[in-house]
């Protein structure tokens, strides 16, 4: 779990992963050795204060060199919200995230539909499965000018103007996925929804001990 200055969802994700039986540790963004880890998550927040563009500075944090290497080598990599933005800026995912169509910070439950189950985030879900997950973002509007990108989950409504109503996007090989809504905030029915569990469980299932 990579922590940049300004990341603020890391404890929620660690708690959710551990709750599902996985192991997770926080790693500061200056770390350059991730050999002990079988998967990498970039959690949400405001890395480096979102200076310049969301993810634009975080992309050059020391840890990102090894994140790119591991992603290229097939290690499962997940970016949630701001982490999704960082992965786009780093070129690990296609496209970019711009301000929501209506220029509002969206903070509500949204329904997403899984459209591709051959990725590290969706393998345990079923195609067409609908999940109710909180969306909390201002720059959540994914654009892909050249039409590239595997859309893994779509918004049932269209809250922010994303191309192809994409809520989650994967690279060609499916080992790098970015999702704008927060699955870790939907891991307890008492708190409104546990629909995020199937996604994080998929990610845990994809981990192969190094």
């Amino acid at each position: 779990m990579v922590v940049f200055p300004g990341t603020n969802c890391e404890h929620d994700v660690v708690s959710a992963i551990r709750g599902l039986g996985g192991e997770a540790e926080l790693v500061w963004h200056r770390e350059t050795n991730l050999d002990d880890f079988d998967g990498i998550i970039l959690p949400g927040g405001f890395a480096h204060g979102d200076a310049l563009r969301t993810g634009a500075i975080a992309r050059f944090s020391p840890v990102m060199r090894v994140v790119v290497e591991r992603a290229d080598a097939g290690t499962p990599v997940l970016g949630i919200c701001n982490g999704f933005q960082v992965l786009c800026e780093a070129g690990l995912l296609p496209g970019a995230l711009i301000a929501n169509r209506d220029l509002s910070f969206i903070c509500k439950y949204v329904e997403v539909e899984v459209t591709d189950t051959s990725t590290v985030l969706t393998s345990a879900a079923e195609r067409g499965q609908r999940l109710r997950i909180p969306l909390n973002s201002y720059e959540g509007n994914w654009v892909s000018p050249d039409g590239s990108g595997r859309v893994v989950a779509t918004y049932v409504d269209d809250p922010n103007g994303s191309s192809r109503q994409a809520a989650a996007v994967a690279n060609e090989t499916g080992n790098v996925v970015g999702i704008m809504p927060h699955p870790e905030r939907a891991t307890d029915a008492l708190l409104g929804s546990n629909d995020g569990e199937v996604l994080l469980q998929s990610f845990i299932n994809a981990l192969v001990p190094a």
Partner: protein
Amino acid sequence: MKVRVEVTRRPEIADPEGTTIKRALNDLDHTSVKEVRVDRVFSLDVDGDDPEAVRRDVADMCEQLLANPVLEDYAIEVIE
């Protein structure tokens, strides 16, 4: 040397902020406004005395960081 860098979102990419400002101007009876795009200007002070070398350096900076090549174009003006 002083360098001015203008970063603009390519015309085919939506600019929600520009659209909102355009709507507000229209609401203020500036009905002649057909489109607003919000661009970004960086003012740099860079060591060096060869304008072409400075321009090349700043172009590198634009490719690496100042502009997002997925969305944006940039224009560089070496002022003095």
